[in-house]
């Protein structure tokens, strides 16, 4: 397929791997931060192609996986109300909260719908003035501008039956939290290509200065990731640490300025709990005071909902790249996509689910991780 097959070419991929093998003189530990990148790595078996010393660990970049338990609880509580239509992106429906998930709320008669864009929510709200339409807004900086736009437009139109449960999270604070951990093993990052398409990569220069390690903003096709890995290893071998942009066909230094503008108009930075990691200061986006009338959390009085997350599995360590999914004794046995013990097994972008879905035969064949 045009514009995609070019980025999945076996010959070029083998060439990059050969160059990587030539340049790498010692083992390196790299992390891809974005769940979409984890998905590609597993789906195309890129970890299988890499020279033995290059280890990839999978970061907390799946917005579905890191949405906190209490946010899911708020969503299921709101969705259970007879006057509410809750709309969300598909993956969120299976994520378990403390007691239930949105699929079960739907089965019990709750009006829960999957959409591809928040503007569909606006359309639905306009057409159904009797319904309270709540958009469950999850995601990183990538999805935030479109969600901000929906609220901005609702305010402009005076659409009173539309609101948002905002659970956006930000990537740079998460990287900072990971690198600040005394147990950090990561020596270089593949930066999140979609997030940087929106935000640019100025913020990542601060991280490089602060922690002295290279970041290469990478794309999502196999050749994008292989090239990003090669660029990282080259920097590491040359003892350099700068931000480089592999994903030039999409990412610019400044990013998408109109998107950033609407984002800043509607949202403000807030502290946020990450499932699997815990609280990270200034790592989320919530609605500004001027948009309080569209804040579902306030409208439905769920601000007080909290939930303690029990320590059942090693997802925290997986999400921080301290362990691989296969290091978990429950992986593939007591913990599967049907019965996930932890968030990374729930979404197809979660590291555990990606391993389970695409890689477990290789694990079974070698008998090792």
């Amino acid at each position: 397929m045009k514009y995609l097959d070019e980025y999945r070419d076996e010959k070029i991929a083998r060439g990059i791997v050969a160059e990587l093998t030539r340049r790498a003189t010692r083992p390196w530990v790299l992390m891809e931060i974005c769940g979409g990148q984890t998905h590609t790595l597993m789906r195309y078996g890129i970890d299988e192609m890499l020279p033995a010393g290059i280890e990839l660990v999978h970061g907390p970049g799946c917005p579905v996986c890191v949405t906190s338990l209490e946010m899911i609880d708020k969503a299921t509580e709101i969705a259970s109300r007879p006057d509410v239509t809750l709309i969300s992106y598909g993956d969120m429906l299976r994520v378990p909260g403390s007691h239930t998930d949105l699929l079960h709320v739907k089965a019990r008669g709750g009006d829960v719908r999957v959409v591809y864009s928040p503007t569909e929510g606006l359309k639905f709200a306009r057409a159904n003035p009797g319904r309270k339409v709540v958009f469950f807004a999850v995601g990183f900086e990538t999805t935030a501008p479109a969600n901000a736009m929906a609220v901005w437009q609702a305010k402009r139109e005076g659409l009173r039956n539309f609101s948002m449960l905002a659970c956006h999270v930000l990537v740079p604070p998460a990287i900072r939290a990971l690198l600040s951990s005394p147990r950090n093993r990561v020596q270089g990052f593949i930066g999140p290509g979609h997030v940087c398409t929106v935000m640019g990569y100025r913020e990542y220069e601060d991280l490089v200065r602060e922690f002295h390690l290279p970041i290469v903003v990478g794309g999502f096709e196999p050749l994008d990731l292989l090239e990003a890995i090669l660029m990282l290893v080259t920097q590491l071998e040359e003892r350099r640490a700068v931000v480089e942009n592999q994903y030039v066909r999409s990412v610019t230094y400044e990013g998408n300025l109109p998107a950033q503008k609407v984002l800043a108009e509607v949202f403000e930075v807030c502290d946020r709990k990450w499932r699997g990691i815990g609280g990270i200061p200034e790592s989320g986006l919530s609605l500004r005071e001027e948009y309080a009338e569209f804040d579902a959390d306030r409208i439905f009085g769920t601000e007080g909902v909290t939930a303690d997350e029990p320590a059942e599995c090693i997802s925290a360590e997986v999400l921080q790249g301290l362990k691989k999914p296969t290091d978990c004794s429950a992986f593939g046995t007591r913990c599967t996509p049907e019965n996930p013990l932890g968030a990374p097994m729930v979404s197809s972008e979660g590291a555990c689910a990606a391993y389970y879905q695409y890689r477990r035969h290789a694990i079974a064949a070698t008998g090792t991780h």
Partner: protein
Amino acid sequence: MPPETKLDVALNCPVPIAARESILLGHGSGGRMSGDLLRNVLLPALQNPVLERLDDQAIVDVGGSRIAFTTDSFVVKPLFFPGGDIGTLAVNGTVNDLAMGGAEPLFLSLALILEEGLPLDTLRRVMESIRVAAALAGVVVVTGDTKVVEKGSGDGLFVNTSGIGLVSSEVQLSADQARPGDRVLLSGTIGDHGITILSQREGLEFESAIASDTAALHTLVADMLRASCEIRCLRDPTRGGLSSSLNEIAARSRVGIELKEDAIPIREEVQGACEILGLDPLYVANEGKLLAIVGPTAAERILEAMHQHPLGRNARMIGTVTDSHPTMVTLRTRLGTSRIVDLLSGDQLPRIC
């Protein structure tokens, strides 16, 4: 690795909802949840050797004849879509379930569940489609039933068809017949039907030239059986797509199946829609395609026969049956690496980014 020390940030993890006390949409997906429902709730009540074969149709002896018997319900939304409607699906779907057993389809029943308020014009259009599809397939609708439910208790129109056909004595097709060395043949492009339906659903408007592939496959099957008797198993990969059918065959025959990614034909529009929506075409439904597991020496001959038939022009050999990794389906990717093609748990949900 150094000995594990307690992490410096709070550990947390959700406990899952393991017990499902009510029906979820995923139970109808054709994936693992459907299988669980079948095994745990439906089959225990009905144990018998014919049913337990779990093929697309039952084959029973009646007065010395081998009769193929099957039933299928159709709940598609929207009722009309490019390439067909619920009526064409209801005829072709049941004809295909018979055909996958190697049967010559003969008679259908038709049961309609109508929701109060359904425009009569809609029903007339669907009946006309049923008439045309049955005539094209050479089957006769010989019995039927109509029920009306209150507004809100149905979704406009649900259709059920049952069908019977005759199977000749030398044809023995079943999902437990695959053996290492066999070849996997596919009659054409995958994902056309599922993506067509998705593109028509409310709230997801994208324009495309894709149309449903709904078609009756029994004449293609007849041509294939004439070319060789070394056909072990046929399946039409409907809901759950290619992956579900192949996983079922791998599990029932206790063999592995290895696919080659670049051999699987996919229309560019379907591939594009899947890329945008975050779906995998291997899991998207088809309504006019078949998978055949065939003996290695007969594969070329059968493929040639398929190419001669209008519904098999794009047929390809897409993989082989192997004795490594039994019950598992794997895919050799374009990059030369290998990955699992797993049975999905429930419905394929669009990914967020």
